[in-house]
């Protein structure tokens, strides 16, 4: 019978746990500060968020205030209306600031709803496998293949116009992207030994999904979220542009572009300014999402 001798002593750290955790926080903070952050997207995103929250404080005028006396002012013509006014004399800058509020609200709520539904479907589908997976994924394929604009038209026709229905239309198509990506991640996580360890201990499937699988796909979820914010804003703008949902006169970027398209030559700023804002915000979220993906999960280099 061979015998083993105790060889080499394993180092058991004696350091005070509290000291260590402070050190940990410091080093994590240091890492974030030292990392090359995408400052331009962050600043643009911050401006949008601040505008959305503090719109009434920031806007120099009421965005719905009609004043025939100052109509059709070009940007820079009158400095109390720095970005000009439209053909009813409403202040462009104020409308853009309030537009951030509309866009942010619609896309965040729609995305949130889509994320909750899609993540749940993805988790269940990926973990359950077999027939559940096949059925859920075919439904997901159908939802992904269905054009959003068409879905929105159907919903608006049936349920009538309004913010709630725009949100519904976006959520109805956007959840499928979450479901797909999350399912893919779940397939990887569920084969790790800690899931097997939980199963043989008798932990219920719901608890395994909640405690073991979900926390390990949060990174992916975060990345999909940021990458989709831009697309959702664009979708909302397209829907407003097409007149599906928001009532004319509301401050939404897509709607403003649509209202200005009859005056492209005579009042170029009506369409150009909101168009520029949409482009910049969408690009900011896309760049930030790309950066987040590369930082958190380099292997996720698939198009979402």
């Amino acid at each position, binding site marked *: 019978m061979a015998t083993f*001798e105790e060889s080499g002593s394993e180092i058991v750290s004696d350091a005070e746990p509290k000291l260590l955790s402070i050190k940990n926080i410091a080093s994590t903070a240091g890492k974030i500060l030292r990392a090359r952050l995408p400052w331009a997207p962050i600043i643009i995103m911050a401006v949008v968020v601040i505008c959305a929250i503090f719109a009434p404080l920031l806007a120099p005028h009421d965005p719905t205030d009609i004043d025939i006396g100052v109509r059709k002012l070009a940007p820079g013509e009158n400095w109390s209306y720095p970005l000009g006014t439209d053909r009813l004399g409403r202040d462009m800058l104020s409308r853009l600031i309030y537009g951030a509020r509309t866009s942010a609200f619609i896309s965040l709520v729609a995305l949130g709803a889509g994320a909750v539904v899609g993540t749940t479907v993805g988790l269940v589908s990926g973990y359950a496998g077999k027939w559940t997976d096949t059925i859920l994924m075919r439904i997901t394929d159908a939802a992904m293949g269905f054009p959003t604009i068409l879905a929105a038209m159907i919903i608006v026709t049936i349920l009538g116009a309004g913010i709630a229905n725009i949100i519904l239309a976006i959520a109805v198509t956007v959840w499928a992207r979450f479901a797909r990506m999350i399912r893919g991640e779940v397939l990887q996580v569920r084969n790790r030994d800690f899931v097997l360890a939980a199963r*043989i201990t*008798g932990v219920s499937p719901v608890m395994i999904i909640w405690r073991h699988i979900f*926390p390990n796909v949060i990174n992916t979820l975060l990345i999909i979220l940021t990458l989709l914010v831009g697309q959702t804003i664009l979708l909302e703008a397209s829907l407003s542009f097409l007149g599906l949902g928001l009532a004319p006169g509301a401050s939404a970027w897509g709607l403003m572009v649509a209202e200005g398209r009859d005056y492209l030559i005579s009042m170029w700023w009506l369409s150009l300014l909101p168009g520029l804002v949409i482009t910049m915000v969408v690009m900011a979220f896309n760049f930030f999402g790309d950066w987040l993906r590369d930082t958190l999960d380099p292997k996720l280099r698939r198009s979402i």
Partner: protein
Amino acid sequence: MTTPSQINAAPGSDSSYEGPLAHIENLKKYYPVTQGMIVRKNVGYVKAIDGVSIDIPKGQTYSLVGESGCGKTTTARMFLMVEKPTAGQVFFRGKDIHKLSRKETADYRASVQAVFQDPWSSLNPRMRVDSLIAEPLVTHQHLSRTELKKRVHELLETVGLRSFHAERYPHEFSGGQRQRIAIARALSTQPELMILDEPVSALDVSIRAQILNLLKELQQNFSLSYLLIAHNLATVRYMSHQVGVMYLGKLVEEGPPSAVFGDPKHPYTKALISAALPAHPTNDREEIVLRGEVPSPINPPSGCTFHTRCPVAMDICSTVYPERREVAEGHRTSCYLYTETGTASA
């Protein structure tokens, strides 16, 4: 070494039962091989385990050895109740585990725990050590917060860690320490049987002996039974009371390690032992190099599955699989060399 306080009596304990703690009888696990996208048809079966019977006595270690793909891990998984066997039964305390009631199944799950090969994969990186260790307890027993905390600290000390390690995350530990955490977790419900699937293969050589000694110590203190899967023969020799050698889903030889390693009977066992490095380079040893590859388990050879590579194969070997024979006290093998028919025709 602290002894964890007795929180519950051994689940399903039945004083009248005197057989082995766990045993499997003529166990088979076939995985179907399918072809076709829409209409699936079976084109064959992977015979992962094909008629294996083993006994695991209380407080002892039964080890399974064999090369990759021979069915060791599948056999161990049958005890973990994550898959159903194709045929045959798994018994625990004399009861078929697939015929237990809901309550009994929960007790069974608490009594059988596992430690896996890779401690980087077997501990959820998002959970703190205390919730990792407490998870089986939370699942099976209703303890108060303070009781749980006390138990976690006891378990940590049992496996040679400190109580303040409870507040850390797995990535803050070395491989050996992580394996200790995995062991503490497995111990938490005071199991009677532990499945050790290559518990030290992923660890540094210098740490292996410590973990093996810890496992031996725990076995003595808590009279645990182990089903050990390992490919390192020295580990097996050190740990086990019984060794089973598997080849292509079949148990070809079993017995106490001194017999199996000291006086191997089956030609495959001989080849397996000769392939391992000797304790000292100048030691004399007979070197048997097997020809060819392990045949596919989808269409295993007829008769004795080893006859295609066996250096001493006879005509009879390709006909029917040889019966298991006792060649010495507790030492059994399935080979025609040790049967009357075999010796007669040889």
